């Protein structure tokens, strides 16, 4: 089975990247792949709980996408450093997102990943 990493480097709104990347992750899960989403850099903002873009800017919530990815068995990870740099606390994050240190993510990327797509 293909082990796919979808790396998100943009914040959730203002660019299409995050929505598009999570959509690829969801579709890949539906096609039977092992999928891990990793929030890197400003992508860390996507891990915040309580997003409500539908009310203000009328776009789909990336929080809903993350919940769907987790429900389908996908893994969602945020770089600890990216969270710390931006002052994002664990209690502010969507439940189910794992926080990993860089060496653990390097292990994942180098030992347990076949393909990487960056958004």
């Amino acid at each position: 089975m293909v082990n796919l990493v979808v790396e998100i480097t943009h914040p959730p709104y203002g660019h299409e990247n995050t929505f598009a990347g999570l959509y690829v992750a969801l579709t890949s899960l539906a096609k039977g792949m092992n999928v891990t989403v990793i929030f890197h850099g400003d992508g860390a903002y996507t891990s915040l709980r309580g997003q409500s873009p539908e009310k203000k800017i009328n776009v789909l919530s990336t929080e809903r996408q993350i919940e769907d990815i987790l429900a389908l068995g996908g893994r969602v990870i945020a770089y600890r450093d990216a969270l710390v740099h931006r002052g994002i606390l664990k209690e502010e994050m969507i439940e189910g997102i794992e926080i990993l240190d860089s060496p653990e993510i390097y292990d994942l990327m180098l030992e347990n990943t076949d393909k990487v797509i960056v958004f």
Partner: protein
Amino acid sequence: MVTDDKKKLAIMLFSGPYGKQDADYMCRIAESALNRGYAVKIFLYGDGVHAQMNGQTPKSFLNIGDYLSELADMGAEIKSCSRCSGARGYVEGEFDEGLDRYPSSKAIDAVKIHTLYSFIDMIKDCDKIMTFGGV
């Protein structure tokens, strides 16, 4: 002709044809890969679907539409996201099973407007994947 023994390269283009250099770079890499015997599959996603627009006439840049057509003639399989294409006004009807694409008079023949599932198939089947314009 694509045969099973060829190495398979999948490419995603996420940015438009001229605002950044990604499309130009992507086409050159794809051409080089084809010349080296790779089977090349390209997926246009997000603003990358604008690379499929008919009638591009850039004055100072390489014509990306023409380049994609040349790559297709060389054997590349090129598809674009139907959802992204629909959002940007390219899709003009329901999926045509016979033509294996969504109809569009605005897109070049070399590019088939298709579902995102076709990109997922490219990811699953390829030996290598490269992304352009995603960051």
